[in-house]
């Protein structure tokens, strides 16, 4: 009842505001950045927007890693009343474009020269049939391995540069009574480890063929079997109580020395920093063994809206999102790195520097790849089908041959 009143009051207020100031840029922004650091980051954008004379209508929908927000979006689009900008990423942008509801923001993008400052493969996600339809916010790297520096030093282990080295180190740690790999048995975490292993074992070209092109021969190749073999080995390195554990609890295990390594995207860094741990001294960050860079880029897709004030708001919003100031402030809060490559990184931590250097290098070498586990490479149905197989294999005694067969049929069935 109260919420209804509140909504009624807010909308009445919005209407009265709109009728007074008509030419003001308007933006209604649907997002699910509601937790501490993220909410702070959005507030920065909000302030910039209003300081340029715009009216920001916040529409945060928390819950379910964006599932709840997507449900809200679906309802709004079906009702013919889409928000101005929506937090969307990867192939989901194209999916919505195919429904014919996205706007063209090429005029801003060209005026601001986005094409020159964004890595080509990331820019590709922001374009719908050649015209710009979304604005990138950040780049999360997925293929990170985090380690407790003290535990490694005590056991005479350095950061592994190959999976064999990792296995040897883990065996040693296990013998010393330390859990080698802190891991949470949730499907998306299994998938995160899996894609890091796949990139390391198979290499960038294999990864692209398997998880971007869904090439059947690659999916059932011997390399894929080797990836599943390594997953089986990794299963032996997690503690027996890992099922259902949240990722931040696994990070805490590394922090307090209960476990040595964790494979997780760079949001884990935020946990370390929040606990007062220093990069390079208390904890170590490195890319997982192998070449390449798996990215997860958050972005705002711009929906078709009516009215000059809303369109103006949309353009202003797009400009600010990719603007240097927001890219810097937001990413320092969030633990990721800016999507545009010309932002000065002086205030960022060493892990972010590594990330930015690797991104530039892999962009030049063609190994800058979208993360499949975080919905950048494939559509929901396909990536979900792969994750089902990965998590079923990891949580049972399925053989690698069986897993590969299942993978091929699951992918075919998800089309």
């Amino acid at each position: 009842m109260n919420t209804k009143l509140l909504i009624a009051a807010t909308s009445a207020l919005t209407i009265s505001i709109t009728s007074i100031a008509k030419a003001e840029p308007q933006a209604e922004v649907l997002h699910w950045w509601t937790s501490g650091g993220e909410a702070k980051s959005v507030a920065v954008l909000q302030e910039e927007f209003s300081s340029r004379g715009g009216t920001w209508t916040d529409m945060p929908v928390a819950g379910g890693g964006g599932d709840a927000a997507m449900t809200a979006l679906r309802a709004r689009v079906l009702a013919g009343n889409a928000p101005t900008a929506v937090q969307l990423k990867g192939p989901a942008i194209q999916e919505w474009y195919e429904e014919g509801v996205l706007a063209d923001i090429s005029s801003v993008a060209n005026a601001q020269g986005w094409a020159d400052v964004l890595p080509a493969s990331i820019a590709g996600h922001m374009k719908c049939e050649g015209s710009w339809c979304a604005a990138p916010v950040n780049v999360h790297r997925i293929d990170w391995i985090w380690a407790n520096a003290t535990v490694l030093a005590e056991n005479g282990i350095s950061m592994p540069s190959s999976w064999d080295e990792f296995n040897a180190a883990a065996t040693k740690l296990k013998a010393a009574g330390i859990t080698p790999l802190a891991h949470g048995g949730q499907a998306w975490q299994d998938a995160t480890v899996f894609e890091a292993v796949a990139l390391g074992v198979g290499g960038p070209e294999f990864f692209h063929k398997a998880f971007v092109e869904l090439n059947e021969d690659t999916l059932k190749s011997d390399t894929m079997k080797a990836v599943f073999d390594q997953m089986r080995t990794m299963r032996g390195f997690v503690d027996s109580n890992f099922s259902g554990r949240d990722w931040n609890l696994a990070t805490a295990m590394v922090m307090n020395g209960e476990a040595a390594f964790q494979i997780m995207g760079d949001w884990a860094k935020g946990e370390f920093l929040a606990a007062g741990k220093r990069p390079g001294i208390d904890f170590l960050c490195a890319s997982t063994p192998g070449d390449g860079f798996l990215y997860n880029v958050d972005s705002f897709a711009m929906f078709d809206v009516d009215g000059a004030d809303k369109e103006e708001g949309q353009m202003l919003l797009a400009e600010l999102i990719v603007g240097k100031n927001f890219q810097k402030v937001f990413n320092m809060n969030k633990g990721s790195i800016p999507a545009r490559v010309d932002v000065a990184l002086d205030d960022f931590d060493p892990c972010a520097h590594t990330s930015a250097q690797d991104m530039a290098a892999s962009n030049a070498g063609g190994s800058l790849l979208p993360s499949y586990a975080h919905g950048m490479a494939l559509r929901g149905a396909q990536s979900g089908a792969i994750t089902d197989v990965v998590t079923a294999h990891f949580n049972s005694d399925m053989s690698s041959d069986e897993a590969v067969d299942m993978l091929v049929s699951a992918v075919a069935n998800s089309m």
Partner: protein
Amino acid sequence: MSEWLEKQLPKLVLAPSFVAILIFVYGFIGWTAWVSFTKSKLLPRYDIVGLIQYDRLFVSPRWDVAFSNLFIFGFLFIVISMLLGLLLAILLDQKIRTEGIIRTIYLYPMALSLIVTGTAWKWILNPGLGLEAMLRSWGWESFSFNWLVDPNMAIYTVVIAGVWQASGFVMALFLAGLRSVDDEIIKAAQVDGIPTWRIYLSIILPSMAAIFLSAFIVLAHLSIKSFDLVVALTGGGPGYATDLPATYMYTMAFSRGDIGQAASSAMIMMAVVFAIVVPYLYSELRARND
């Protein structure tokens, strides 16, 4: 005029809710059925393409797990809850002194939300936090109870939590049934020197057939629509070992943008409900017509 009004008033009063149910229950069942025959992905589409979603559903190993879990969970949940409920009811029926308090204690779990039950049992059954860790810290080093993290056994933890929640309620149903049996008959049997267990088996329980049926129907629909318990207790894991049709449907509709799959799994769930409810309705209606 007033006579007409008097005659029509019940219908007029019932009309709004009738219309609402017609649209929001049966209308949407029809809509779901329609969508299940389309290639809907992110948003619903309405051009019918045939049974493709059902084909996909039946070859999906995850649906296989979810669907067989429904029968494992449903069967054990219903049978154990009924047996336990009946046993508790019979024990309470022995005219004991503190019956009121005990009855409340047993009935209380039903007042909890399934989310609370699931979360509490998640902690109790977690090998690193709960029962296993406690007994080991007390010195029983070899004690092991890790069903929650064992993909082959995890579905049985859902049964445990479900039974804990529902058996008190079933007890209350049965207790009411036991009390409704005519005292005279029982006394007559006692005068004839028939042992108590025989009185229960041959006189009281057979006269409670209707209660058994109600308990079965209540438990059956609870188990088919069961969703929050699994989400809170295991999150469908380890892997997808404890998926149920309801959680499968949710994943497809809201996480994966595969509305066609979700709709077809919803239709299968409804078919299961119908398979249970229709015979019940049929027998009810026939009994009344006779």
